[in-house]
């Protein structure tokens, strides 16, 4: 820890130690009209870090569509807010906790969950669901098991203790994440649309109140760590990882919601990355006011903490609020009831400055503008790489047996059941989980109503690497499709943009093209971005991760009795395919299995066809014609059919498309497609209606028996497929694979 005497005047060397370049340091001195002292340097450097300032991404993020008829509040607040009717709002966001989770998987993942929940309940919502999107290195990398075990336990223990169900997510393995895993957590909350709480602290003379846990020396410089690449010594950064206490957060949640029912809070902001610094600066900057804090009054866990340490601590489970003057006793009573710290630590001012006093001395005086809107912004150079050519099906070897290929795929690390993960999450608490993990989207009922939300997280990083534009489109479209497959009307998304070093033009190009692709899909599907997070510098020793723009989607189901799941049900005689067949094997999991590589262009997304097919399928669910729908994604039609068969314990006979190579028909990953289970009578009607709407459709399987039958091959008993599908994960984690 550097000396913390405020008489220490910052230099270029000190700035470099804060990962602040010489140019930015000069800019800071220029804006300030003097060199900052050490405490001020700590504050400026963290606010100007990539993590807090979005300095490389802002110019691109502005291009995303963020408005729509359902949007109450788009990006820029703690989370996005959408209207779900009846004066109710859904507040949601996804956020990364990649760097800490790689260094300390249990605490890193746990505090990621804690942080995203605070973002949601800060705005007045009770969290009703959690999801996650996880990327690990290849399964046989020596660290992978340890990281999977730690991350899953961390997510589980935090969410389980909070009593918020973890209902969905996705997990990938790829060597490109060996040195930099991704842990993205999403929280969805429910609020009264007329009682949303924002962070802008307008007006002077209002009390600034600190609530929650005490401030300690943990997590100092967490945001700075999250803004740099890793190397072999990254493990030494373990002390920068925060430690979570879900019990404290549960108390904080209940206390905040209790106070929010009163008319006492003017503005509220959780203390996440950059803790007290970013919460106070953001509240003042957004409100056009200033803030003056007396750090002597900050509840402290340790003795002798300096101003520098207090301002940069990322201790968890803390909130900063600006209260209506006079309401302090009421607020204090509530927080004391929940046995939490409560301290008036300052006041809002009209100076536009962040002013800090400690032990009688003025230790920092910074204009908030410098720290917020005037932070550096870069339009970094981009160098897109050429998009690979389309691979034809003939160039991907056919298997000896489609059935063997299916068994291998469905029991592979990429497609094996994630039950081992989601059974460690309490996915039923709150008694509103209508569709549990394992289907296309989770469905959570809006408590006490007949409505529900459909929730999912998706992205296909290998597609994004091959073609970031199509990959970005596909990520958005796949969430839209998964929500649709559950019967939901997709309303809006949150994005969690995980990329490598933006100072490298090829990485910046991945980011830019992914944003453009996402934007195009959002516009075409009327599906805006309302919140998000950017995580850059996901690199170790100069090797970047796959570009991973993880998308979290939220849709609305008007009648919770009209939902669909993937399981074949007793009334299903026929499986109808909705969508076109071209046998696209480039970038498919089959290609990876057959050749050991993924190559070529990813499957393109035709957004007009996507919308048409999806709207059609959703109408079938809404009309009660089907309760069995599965979107076709990784692994293609045959894998999707097998998943339906396994989930429903029913057999089927697969009819591959005429005119396509059988392995391309079975495993091609064309986009915008669904499998719909219907009765024999309904099948003809569904196909007629599809035809009338110029939507491709055909019968792709007959349901019956207890095996999957593929041409003249030996039937594959569903029980055997289930074992292949279910056994991989527990065997892997048990060290048996």
């Amino acid at each position, binding site marked *: 820890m550097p000396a913390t005497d405020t008489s220490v005047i910052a230099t270029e060397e000190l700035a470099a130690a804060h990962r602040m370049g010489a140019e930015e340091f000069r800019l800071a001195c220029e804006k300030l009209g003097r060199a900052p002292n050490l405490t001020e340097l700590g504050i400026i450097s963290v606010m100007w870090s990539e993590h807090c300032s979005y300095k490389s991404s802002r110019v691109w993020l502005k291009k995303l569509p963020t408005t729509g008829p359902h949007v109450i509040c788009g990006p820029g607040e703690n989370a996005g807010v959408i209207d779900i009717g009846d004066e109710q709002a859904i507040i949601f966001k996804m956020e990364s906790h990649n760097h800490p989770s790689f260094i300390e998987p249990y605490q890193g993942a746990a505090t990621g969950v804690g942080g995203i929940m605070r973002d949601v309940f800060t705005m007045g919502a009770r969290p009703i669901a959690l999801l996650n999107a996880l990327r690990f290195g290849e399964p046989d990398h020596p660290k992978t098991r340890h990281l999977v075990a730690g991350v899953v336990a961390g997510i589980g223990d935090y969410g*389980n203790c909070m009593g918020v169900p973890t209902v969905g997510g996705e997990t990938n393995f790829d060597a490109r994440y060996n040195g930099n895993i991704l842990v993205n957590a999403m929280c969805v909350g429910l609020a009264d649309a007329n009682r949303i709480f924002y962070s802008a602290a307008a007006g002077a003379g209002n009390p600034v109140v600190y609530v929650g846990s005490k401030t300690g020396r943990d997590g100092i410089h967490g945001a700075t760590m999250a803004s740099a690449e890793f190397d072999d010594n990254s493990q030494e950064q373990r002390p920068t990882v925060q430690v979570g206490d879900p019990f404290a957060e549960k108390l904080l949640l209940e206390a905040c919601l209790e106070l929010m029912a009163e008319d006492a809070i003017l503005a509220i902001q959780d203390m996440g990355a950059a803790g007290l610094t970013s919460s106070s600066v953001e509240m003042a900057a957004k409100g056009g006011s200033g803030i003056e804090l007396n750090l002597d009054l900050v509840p402290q866990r340790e003795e002798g903490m300096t101003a520098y340490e207090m301002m940069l601590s990322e201790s968890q489970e803390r909130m900063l609020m600006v209260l209506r003057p006079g309401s302090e006793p009421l607020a204090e009573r509530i927080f004391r009831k929940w046995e939490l710290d409560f301290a008036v630590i300052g006041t809002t001012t009209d100076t536009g400055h962040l002013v800090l006093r400690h032990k009688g001395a003025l230790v920092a005086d910074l204009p908030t503008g410098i720290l917020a809107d005037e932070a550096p912004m870069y339009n970094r150079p981009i160098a897109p790489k050429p998009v690979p050519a389309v691979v034809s099906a003939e160039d991907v070897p056919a298997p000896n047996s489609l059935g063997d290929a299916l068994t291998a795929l469905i029991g592979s690390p990429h497609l094996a059941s994630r039950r081992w993960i989601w059974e*460690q999450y309490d*996915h039923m*608490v709150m*008694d509103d989980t209508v569709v549990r993990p394992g289907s296309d989207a989770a469905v959570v009922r809006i408590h006490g109503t007949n409505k529900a939300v459909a929730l999912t997280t998706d992205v296909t990083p290998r597609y994004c690497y091959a073609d970031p534009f199509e990959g970005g489109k596909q990520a958005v479209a796949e969430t839209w499709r998964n929500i649709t497959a559950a019967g939901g009307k997709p309303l809006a998304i949150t994005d969690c943009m995980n990329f490598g070093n933006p100072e490298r033009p090829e990485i910046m190009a991945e980011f830019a093209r992914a944003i453009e692709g996402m934007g195009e899909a959002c516009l075409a599907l009327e599906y805006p971005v309302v919140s998000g997070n950017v995580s850059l510098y996901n690199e170790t020793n100069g090797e970047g991760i796959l570009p991973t723009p993880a998308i979290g989607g939220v849709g609305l189901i008007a009648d919770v009795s009209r939902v669909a799941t993937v399981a074949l049900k007793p009334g299903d005689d026929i499986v109808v395919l909705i969508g076109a067949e071209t046998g696209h094997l480039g970038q498919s999991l089959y290609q990876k299995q057959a050749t050991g590589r993924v190559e070529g262009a990813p499957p393109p997304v035709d957004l007009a066809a996507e919308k048409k097919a999806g709207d059609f399928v959703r109408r079938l669910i809404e009309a009660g014609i089907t309760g069995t729908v599965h979107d076709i994604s990784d692994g293609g039609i045959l894998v999707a059919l097998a998943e339906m068969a396994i989930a429903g314990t029913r057999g089927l006979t697969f009819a591959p498309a005429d005119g396509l190579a059988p392995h391309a028909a079975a495993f091609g990953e064309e986009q915008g497609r669904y499998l719909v289970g219907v009765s024999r009578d309904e099948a003809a009607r569904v196909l007629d209606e599809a035809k009338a709407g110029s939507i491709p459709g055909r019968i792709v399987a007959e349901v019956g028996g207890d095996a999957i039958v593929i041409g003249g091959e030996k039937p594959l008993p569903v029980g055997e497929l289930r074992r292949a599908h279910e056994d991989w994960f527990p065997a892997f984690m048990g060290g048996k694979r």
Partner: protein
Amino acid sequence: MKAAVIVFPGSNCDRDAAVTLEAVTGVKPAMIWHGDEALPKVDLIVLPGGFSYGDYLRSGAMAAQSPIVRAVKAEAERGVAVLGICNGFQILTETGLLPGALMRNSGLNFICRDVDLTVERADTAFTNAYTQGERVTIPIAHKDGSYFADDETLDRIEGEGQVVFRYATAEGGSGNPNGSRRDIAGLIDRTGRIMGLMPHPERAADAALGGIDGRRLFESLTRTLN
């Protein structure tokens, strides 16, 4: 039937229990904060699932020492029925109101899933709407649910008919999920007024969420205590 649900800091199935009680009995239960001094006059006290006081030290251990649980104990001695679900069961063993202890699951992980149970006793205040020997499906969600007692205690509680639910390990059943001795999932005390179980019957009482096999537990209580 009038019920009270105790709310500890860290309880998180309190609302679920209350919603189910109201749905089955038609009467909203009283929600009793752990700091409250006295319990209202009720027929049933529910200790809900969750992580009381963060489950620090040991699941249920701190709650067992709390003043409100002393009051619950006094009410139980007066004959008020007590139902402990999940963390509530852990609290009941920690207080000694039920024998044995709930230890870390044998697989060491938290488990949330539907499990099959065999109804061992259908003649209690809590289970008289079930049939003896019936198999029912009710979810579990816990990390510390492995029931342990020494052989002597196990023989005694078996002999006195205190085992009410067992994990169904026979052919077709989902098996013992957590290593509980003798597959014990739920117990009743000698008086027949205090029951604890690890599965969550309140999560299996609404058809929209899957099964409704847990609903009859609340129906049994309503029938008995009205």
